[in-house]
């Protein structure tokens, strides 16, 4: 069933969204750690009926020549055709690429992972951290669910065993956890007409004028942003959207229990 923008706006004007929530209200958020034993770290996040899984794989590689003292961080997202009738098979399209890049920036720019700590031997051996985000069910707000799943999976990550030659024994995890210096939280706020809402449903996403994703670090400082949507935003609007995002980020942070 397709809901028109007009219809979405009618609900917003009445003060209650069509699933009964207030504009700034989130659906129930759940985080489950360690959902895949095959991964070095994993988490499953649900926001209402939206479900996203993230998993971390570690590998030993030769550092890039221009950063011989650093390990590597990679974030990839797949919007699977399983999770929505609108997603198709094949290589990631712009929507999946944007999603993974926005999350990548929140983790990279907050310096959550200190890449120099991943280096074992300068110019020769360093860990690469590969985070894969996979959508299971899209009931709106994949951005926030995916970002939360990625950071939770990183919190769950332990190094696998390895020998001096750089062979990794994936069947044995060590007790050593991947150190996280920060836990960035992302919140996406939508503007539809004159209304500002958090945690959108798919029909609301379809009706959006503008979207602003804000990532904040542990000190509640903004560490990444991305504006989406076809309409421009004024300073006042940006200010209100960031305020809402920062307030919601505080709530979301409490859901991370590690």
């Amino acid at each position, binding site marked *: 069933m397709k809901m028109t923008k007009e219809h979405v706006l009618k609900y917003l004007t009445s003060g209650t969204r069509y699933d009964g929530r207030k504009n700034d209200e989130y659906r129930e958020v759940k985080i489950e750690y360690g*959902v*895949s*034993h*095959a*991964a*070095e770290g*994993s988490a499953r996040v649900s926001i209402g*009926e939206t*479900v996203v*899984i993230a*998993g*971390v*794989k570690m*590998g030993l590689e030769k550092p890039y020549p221009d950063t011989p003292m650093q390990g590597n961080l990679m974030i*990839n997202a*797949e919007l*699977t*055709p*399983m*999770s*929505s*009738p609108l997603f198709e*098979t094949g*290589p*990631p399209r712009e929507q999946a690429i944007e999603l993974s890049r926005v999350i990548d920036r929140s983790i990279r720019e907050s310096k959550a992972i200190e890449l120099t700590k991943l280096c074992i031997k300068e110019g020769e051996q360093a860990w690469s951290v*590969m985070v*894969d985000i*996979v959508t*299971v*069910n*899209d*009931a709106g707000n994949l951005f926030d669910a995916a970002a939360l799943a990625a950071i939770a999976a990183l919190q769950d990550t332990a190094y696998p065993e390895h020998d001096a030659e750089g062979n*990794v024994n*994936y*069947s044995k995890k060590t007790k050593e956890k991947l150190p996280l210096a920060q836990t960035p939280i992302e919140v996406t706020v939508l503007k539809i007409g004159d209304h500002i809402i958090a945690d959108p449903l798919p029909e609301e996403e379809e009706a959006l004028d503008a979207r602003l994703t804000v990532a904040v670090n542990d000190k509640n400082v903004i560490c990444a942003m991305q504006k989406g949507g076809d309409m421009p935003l004024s300073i006042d609007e940006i200010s209100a959207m960031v305020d809402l995002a920062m307030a919601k980020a505080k709530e979301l942070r409490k859901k991370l229990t590690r």
Partner: protein
Amino acid sequence: MAAKAVKIEYKKRSDGRSWEELRPIEAKTGIVPRADGSASFKIGHTLAYAAVYGPRDLHPKFMQNPETGILRCRYNMMPFSGHGERVRPGTSRRSQEISMLMSKALLPVLDLKDYPNSVVDVFVELPETDAGTRCAGISAAAMALADAGLAMKDLVVSFSMGYYDGQIMCDLSGYEDCDVGVSDIPVAYIPSMDKFSLLQLDGEVPKEDLIKILQLAKKKALDMYKVQQESLKAKYRQGE
């Protein structure tokens, strides 16, 4: 997979199961609300999600069949799901073959004649794998098709059988399949027809023992069949 010179300890298996014992099974129906039908099927540390969309319009158009709808399966391991290095996203020769075999395993229970020019899409995603992924995928997909309300003659039950040095066993673990080199015989069974819709074999098995293996597979399939049925019933009992 070639047998390595590692003897498995007789009398019991590495994970303590008896020869005929399946790993613990957990099945859930309706795990992807956005899809027309969905289910998850977990056996040991192998977990498969299946979601069904359709019947819906088939694109590209040249694939459309005016006489019947078609079934299209896609098998995909999540990049972090393997016990080893990251699995590169996207299709591989292996995943394409498995996708095809899954459709062939499921098609006999479906009747898509009422849906000309349409497709029923089955998407199987694996968050965690430890042998028997195609089988778990088929078992989950059969449940998801039933959940989607498609007319079906029966469910399809699938798991792998194993054979090592005269010993028949059920439902290989990753250790048995990869490290020990037990002959791997994935099967899918349709109870009401008393027929197999998937049969593969990797390894050495004498003919007489193959028949015994299939007879045991039939018997064990009925246990798994009950779990699938119970899970489907549980969803509709809740009146969802």
